[in-house]
């Protein structure tokens, strides 16, 4: 195999890995959000990833998380030697790129101005919101299809339909340290407690608001990115 062939296959693996990097605030992959501007792999297996965000002043905390996550998912891939992630056109790009290049955390980018623990707490907060949003989408669909509240809430993880929201919901549960065993309740509160029938309507009402918030943010981000980079229309309005 020539090195250019292996570089091409490495690139495919890199892109697939980047599908697993999630914008923590929007709970969507950075690839479908079109935040990955380019991926280059040279014959030696050195990977250069360029990221772009909707505005030059997007929150540095989330920007850092995405850039660091991109580096971390790509580094262990076979065929990859060095990984450099470059955050383009961002007002803290130099600080973030510098810290990433040195293999440092968020505190490395902004010494004395932040703590890495707080960044992880922020990520967790949004994972909880995303979990509510994902689960409620499934739950509403089941109720629409005719299931009763009792039936829906009696479901276990193994009964969940094979839909993207359900898969993502389980990933979020795992990330939050909540039970994902096949016997665990299918629908849980952010604490891991099962949702009970009395709470269902209220839980769905609140979940819908959380989902609206996520979707509206995603919509604004997509529109800003589109306007900034003259991208073609992006019809995806609804969180899937």
């Amino acid at each position, binding site marked *: 195999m020539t090195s250019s062939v292996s570089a091409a296959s490495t690139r495919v693996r890199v892109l697939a890995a980047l599908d697993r990097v999630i914008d923590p605030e929007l709970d969507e992959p950075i690839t479908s959000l079109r935040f990955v501007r380019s991926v280059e792999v040279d014959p030696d297996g050195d990977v250069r990833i360029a990221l772009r965000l909707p505005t030059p002043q997007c*929150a540095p905390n989330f920007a850092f998380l995405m850039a660091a996550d991109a580096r971390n998912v790509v580094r262990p891939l076979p065929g990859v030697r060095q990984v450099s992630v470059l955050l383009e056109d961002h007002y803290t790009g130099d600080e973030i790129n510098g810290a990433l290049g040195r293999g440092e955390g968020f505190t490395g980018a902004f010494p004395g101005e932040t703590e890495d623990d707080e960044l992880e707490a922020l990520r967790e907060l949004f994972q909880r919101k995303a979990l509510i949003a994902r689960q409620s989408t499934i739950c509403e669909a089941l109720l629409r299809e005719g299931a009763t509240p009792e039936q829906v809430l009696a479901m276990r993880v193994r009964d969940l339909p094979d839909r993207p929201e359900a898969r993502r919901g389980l990933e979020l549960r795992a990330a939050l340290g909540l039970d994902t065993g096949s016997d665990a309740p299918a629908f849980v509160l952010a604490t891991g407690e099962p949702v009970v029938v009395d709470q269902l309507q209220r839980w769905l009402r609140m979940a819908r608001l959380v989902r609206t918030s996520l979707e509206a943010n995603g919509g604004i981000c997509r529109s800003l990115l589109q*306007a900034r980079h003259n991208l073609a229309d992006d019809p995806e309005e609804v969180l899937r």
Partner: protein
Amino acid sequence: MYEKNGERYFIVDSHMHFWDASPENWVKGQEQYAKGWIDCFHAYMGLGPPETHWPIEKFMTYSEDDFVKDVFEDGGVDVGVFQSTYLKEWYTTGFNTAEENAKMAAKHPGRLITNGRWDPREGKAGLKQLEEDAKRYNLQGVKLYTAEWYQGSRGWRLDDEQSKPFLEKCQELGIRNIHVHKGPTIWPLDKDAFDPRDIDIAATSNPELNFIIEHVGLPRIEDFCFMATQEPNVYAGLSVVVGGLMFARPRFFAKVMGELLFWVGEDKMLFGSDYGIWEPKWQIDGFIDWDYPDPDHDEFSDYPRLNSDGKRKILGLNAAKLYGIDVPKEFQLANGAGAPAAQDDAQLVESAAG
């Protein structure tokens, strides 16, 4: 007054600016931030209809003539509220200070209200400044940025001990309207600067004050709604909501409106154009015509409807009440202001929280 289809509307634009972001006003050594800030605002303009976009040169410094035409003539705004934004670390004479706003207001008597600012971390000097500003500008309101950095402090909260004397001073000085920026922001880096929970406590402790949450906590609408529904003196400032979503993402806009109408209610929502980010005209015009895109669809069917009276409240009457603006009789609603919003829902959330 804005007129459409033979109907006339009294308009209060509760959130607008008149700024100077020209390169001549950039602080030396801070040019990248000054430029980045205005570029960022300019990107937001891109979410409005294309025919309303301005080139960046005009966007940096629109003229007084532009303001008068866009706001008063085309927008039909009866009264506008200036929200002052200083940013003196990036802009030499400030981005949009109360001083500059007051100069403009003086030229248009009765048409513009200048809001001030305070920052509790400035302590006694800040209180003194607030007193002076209140006198000089006849302040009825302030705009606060809790996420701002100051001498090594990474933001502050309205329920901090240090904020108390400032809120008390506001009551004493008759500054009733506390606009708080809980929306798109830059600093701080790691904390969740959008978190509106501090308002909850401040609003309960200061029932005479009104707390208007600008940009409804975007991107944390849910946290805002859960809080606002329990506090009678918390209002939703719709700046960025209308400008950023109504044209660019109409289905999302409809959902956000539906949620706000459900949790907060039409009596506590205030229109704000965020001019010069977006011109008021297309926002007001579109809002008057607005309805759910597909009212009977599952996504929208159980949201409260918004009729013409509700739109009148949001476009002007609610803010007129907060700012004591005289509304000519022809614009007043026959049945008065309407009942307080969403009391049942407040109970719903309280019981959920309890």
